[in-house]
């Protein structure tokens, strides 16, 4: 057992930090720090920078353009990005579609998609959830029929992040009714401009637009858009789940919150916050910092411990805790900012001069409630915390 970062790991982290200092546009970082949902075009310069550096697809096999990093290096990279307010780049394309194509896709599909994804030319959305298949993906109904060289899809997808700006959807659809429900699913790539694809925005609590419903009506796509074997969709979804053990732990984001809180509190004190109130806030902050430390080390253990039988339970644990701690961290900011966070604020208020901020809202306020509400989703999407607790029990204790 070796509980220190190696010199190599430390050097790597410093390299990442240097790169971030050089290549991340400060205006983009500032925008990301506020927490409003960024558009594809906002993120593009950062995507380009990562691509040029060769760091755009850390999770892919090296011969498909991956970095060859060890899990610990990927973690250090993501943490440093989080702290430096670097936005996530094209998460679905790079973390889901890419790896699935690398593992299961035909050469032709890889040829068509991998390089454009790396370059940032193709943006993807994920079509898994349906109104009646939320936590229970095996209940996916989206129908398919095979017609000549085409697959024709009919279905209704929901909670589809970025469907309104994506070029393609990676869609989980039913290709068979034989056997257990999960055995009749396939992954299919659908161009979002195909006839019959209709996107309806879903307004979310946080006030941003990022999720959508997608209706598929007789959408025909070429047979070669089916990824891997027919009816292997469940296995592919499981594959994705298994390799993304720690992303949902949000360590980088949590460190971002912790790092900026003392400054925020100082500014509030300077602006007249009662010192006794600040005492209580600082106390909660220190307690939260300890909770985040423990959480981060739980993540490190998942990365580095390759023999533990508790991996699945540990992954669920850090997903639960990641969402809980994010809700706490963002709530603590709201408490420190007090009435400043009351006004509904939009990116337009802060990124343009067209709409001024309300007089009471200082520079720390915009985006805080939006982001705080958004983190509620972290406890829901990708398997609710209730589902995760069930997984923990059945993995560890069920007999």
């Amino acid at each position, binding site marked *: 057992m070796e509980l220190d970062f190696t010199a190599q790991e430390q050097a790597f982290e410093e390299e990442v930090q240097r790169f971030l200092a050089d290549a991340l546009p400060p205006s983009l970082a500032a925008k990301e720090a506020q927490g409003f949902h960024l558009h594809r075009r906002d993120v593009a310069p950062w995507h380009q920078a990562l691509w040029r550096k060769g760091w755009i697809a850390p999770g892919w096999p090296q011969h498909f353009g991956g970095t060859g990093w060890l899990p610990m290096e990927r973690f250090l990279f993501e943490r440093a990005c989080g702290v430096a307010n670097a936005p996530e780049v094209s998460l679905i394309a790079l973390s889901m579609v890419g790896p699935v194509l690398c593992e299961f896709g035909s050469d032709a599909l890889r040829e068509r998609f991998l390089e454009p994804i790396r370059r940032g030319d193709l943006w993807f959305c994920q079509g898994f959830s349906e109104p009646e298949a939320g936590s229970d993906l095996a209940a996916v109904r989206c129908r398919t029929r095979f017609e000549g060289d085409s697959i024709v899809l009919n279905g209704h997808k929901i909670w589809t992040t970025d469907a309104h700006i994506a070029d393609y959807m990676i869609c989980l659809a039913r290709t068979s009714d034989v056997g257990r429900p999960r055995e009749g699913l396939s992954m299919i790539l659908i161009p979002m401009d195909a006839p019959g694809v209709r996107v309806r925005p879903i307004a979310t609590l946080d006030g941003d637009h990022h999720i959508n419903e997608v209706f598929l009506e007789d959408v025909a796509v070429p047979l070669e858009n089916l990824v891997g074997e027919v009816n292997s969709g469940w296995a592919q979804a499981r594959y994705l789940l298994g390799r993304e053990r720690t992303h949902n732990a949000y360590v980088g984001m949590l460190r971002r919150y912790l790092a900026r809180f003392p400054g925020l509190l100082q500014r509030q004190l300077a602006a007249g*916050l009662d010192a006794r109130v600040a005492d209580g806030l600082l106390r909660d902050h220190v307690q939260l910092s300890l909770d985040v430390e423990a959480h981060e080390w739980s993540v490190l253990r998942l990365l580095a411990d390759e023999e533990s039988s508790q991996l699945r339970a540990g992954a669920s644990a850090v997903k639960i805790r990641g969402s809980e701690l994010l809700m706490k961290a963002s709530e603590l900011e*709201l408490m420190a900012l*007090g009435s400043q966070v009351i006004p509904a604020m939009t990116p337009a208020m802060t990124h343009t001069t067209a709409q001024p901020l*309300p007089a009471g809202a200082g520079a720390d306020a915009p985006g805080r409630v939006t982001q705080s509400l958004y983190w509620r*989703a972290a406890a829901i999407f990708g398997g609710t915390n209730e589902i995760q607790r069930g997984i923990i029990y059945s993995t560890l204790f069920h007999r």
Partner: protein
Amino acid sequence: MDFRISDEQRLLRDTARKVLAEATGTSGDDAWMPFRELGWTALPIDEAHDGLGGSLVDLAFLLEELGRARCQVPYLECCVLPAMLLKALASRGVAHAELLGSLARGEQRLGVAVEERSSAESVGAFSTRLAATPSGFRLIGEKLLVVGGAACDGLLVVAVADHETCLVYVPPDAAGVRIRGYSAVDGRELADIEFVDVPVSESAVLARGTAVDEALVEAQAIALTLQCADIVGAMEASMEMTAEYLQQRQQFGQKLASFQALQHGMAVLFIACNEARSMLFRALSALGQADISLRRRAASGCKVKVAACARQVTGMAVQYHGALGMTTEYAVGHYLRRSIVAEQLFGNAHYHLAMCLADHAAVAK
């Protein structure tokens, strides 16, 4: 002690529930209509001033329904709060019968302008000032977060003159009044208001000195408590809506309501709602006490507890709705937003806990 709701209170509650549910989506003057027509504007005011002489408990029942209906009408802030302020002044010998009467009749909605940039809600530390001129005064300063401030008929402004707090009546269309309205996260309307050398006549200075300081504390304790009633209404509705949803929604081939972990979760939410209501009743009781510091402390304690329960209940209600809870199309999330705004308005739980702590330390010494 008797917690049985009276027939009048039941009528008030049932009417309000029905009317406010029907009025969902109306705004501006239309939304105020039922408040005038059903006598709700008269409720906080005594009969001598055309009011109905309702009790704080009556008001709490009504406010609960506002919370439940997610009503955006600034009834608390533009009718109840100014009424309580004027009544508190009247009980200190400073009568303004005409204003109370016009509030009661629903002729005026009065914005109360207290909070300032960085005032951190500490009483008596206002920078808005009233300067003497040969012909009277002028008002200089800026007030923030005036709920309903952009659509009111008059402003009650707290300012300082000669080291004394005073309460000034200012028409919103007076020269030098600059109102910038905006929406809160939950849709309620607020305004920041700048006063640039606004001329103020002697008669518009409604009161001065300790009377104002005390009346502010007194009225704010009431407003804080009634705000908690609103939150209690919102969280109970949010809980009921969630229980309903769990009965409907199927996952893994069964109703969500059949999962014991969720059942026990709902029990925890009930406990939170129940305790919030209990704390509300306690504060309403304490508001009847003679000692003003007891009243203030009870209101602070009420906010601490109710806000914490609301955070838990409205948050878990969203959680139990799953992704649906995240959408604005479904009502449950609006309760969460309402409780976030309510938490930060009139001082959040951290602020009021610090107040309780300070009182406690003072008492202990």
